[in-house]
């Protein structure tokens, strides 16, 4: 609560403001003190909270799985290893089911997106005021806890996926094949500009829809938690508990959808015959 006055609008806006470190218009670098300053920084700025939380969660994911991988026992897997292996099995099944090509990167890619998104989404289930209040007590005025409610995070991932789609399309089909797929389809070469438009939209829609779907769902969920947090404290549980329980479903479902689409897009990029 940086401003001190607790109007609903200010509360919501405050909760939706990232902790931004960037280049002020006058040239020096520093933390933005309010939303306007953050906006004026333009592209030359970092959302420290998004980067920080997503990094910590990603490292947590890698750490847990790396521990299991290091101690992987063939005879007597621990309960934790069993749990992780069931996840691996689940991912592997999905990849086998949807991905027909041969690429050792797709399964780890799917695993990373799935677990990382789940962890980032799960931050939504932490009561909305806990971490920002804690940060506020330590002198940090803005903190957005859920990285996936920041389009930078979701677009960051989907752009990575998009680059992989482009790379593997060119690698598997050849540059000519990929360009041909974009231009000679679906109406033959006499409708080339129209084909290019259709296929271009189709291609660009992949990363955009990936990023916006995840962002939209998590942003909406977060917004509802913030709105519930505006209610008197003694009644909040009656709404926040059901919503949190429902939100668990969304957390997992969005991660699953993202992962499945990544696998499908990678499969499309690997298919030679169209």
């Amino acid at each position, binding site marked *: 609560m940086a401003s001190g006055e607790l109007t609903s609008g200010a509360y919501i806006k405050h909760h939706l403001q990232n902790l931004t470190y960037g280049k002020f218009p006058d040239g020096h670098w520093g933390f933005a003190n309010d939303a306007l300053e953050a906006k004026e920084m333009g592209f*030359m700025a970092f959302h420290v909270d*998004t980067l920080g939380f997503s990094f910590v969660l990603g490292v947590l994911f890698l750490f847990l799985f790396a521990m299991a*991988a290091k101690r992987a026992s063939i005879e007597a897997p621990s309960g934790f290893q069993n749990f992780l292996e069931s996840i691996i099995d689940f991912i592997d099944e999905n990849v086998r089911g949807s991905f027909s090509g041969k690429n050792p990167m797709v399964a780890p890619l799917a695993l*990373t997106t799935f677990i990382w998104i789940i962890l980032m989404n799960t931050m939504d289930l932490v009561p909305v005021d806990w971490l920002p209040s804690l940060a506020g007590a330590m002198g940090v005025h803005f903190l957005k806890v859920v990285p996936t409610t920041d*389009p930078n995070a979701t677009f960051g991932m989907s752009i990575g996926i998009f680059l992989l789609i482009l790379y593997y399309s060119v690698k598997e089909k050849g540059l000519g094949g990929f360009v041909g797929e974009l231009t000679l389809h679906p109406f033959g070469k006499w409708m080339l500009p129209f084909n290019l438009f259709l296929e271009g939209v189709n291609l660009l829609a992949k990363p955009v829809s990936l990023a916006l779907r995840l962002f939209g769902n998590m942003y909406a969920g977060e917004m509802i938690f913030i709105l519930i947090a505006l209610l008197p404290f003694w009644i909040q549980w009656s709404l926040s508990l059901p919503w949190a329980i429902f939100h668990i479903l969304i957390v997992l479902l969005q991660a699953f959808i993202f992962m499945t689409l990544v696998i499908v897009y990678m499969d499309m990029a690997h298919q030679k015959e169209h």
Partner: protein
Amino acid sequence: MNINLTLVGQTIMFAMFVWFCMKFIWPPLVEAMAARKKSIEDGLKAAELGKEEHALAQKNAEELIASTKNQAAEIIANADKQANVMIDNAKGVASEEADKIKVHAKSELDQEVVKARNELKNQVSTLVMQGVNSVLEKEVDVKAHKDMLSKLSQSL
């Protein structure tokens, strides 16, 4: 909600995480799982094999027992037969021997009878002689009558 350098940072972070996962996490875990799957499959196969071997061994043992039983029965039957043959032989030998003994005894007995009769004859003739002697006193010429007496005793 501004798009800024965070985007680039997130993309790089994502790429790093995927790379790490692909390098150090996915392969060992999948390998461990595959190895466990294989060892379980092998174990099951070995168990199945052992079961089959056990069944085979049991069957062999049963066959062996059955054949042994047959053999034993055969041996017993043979032994019985042999024993019967031996008993029969023994019986034959014994009856032969008995016959021989009987014949021998009979001949001995006959001899004894002949002997006894001869003795008796002699005794009777002596007795007769004595009787005649005592009846006739001196009128009997021993020498003259001796032939007659001995003839008498012969005819007895």
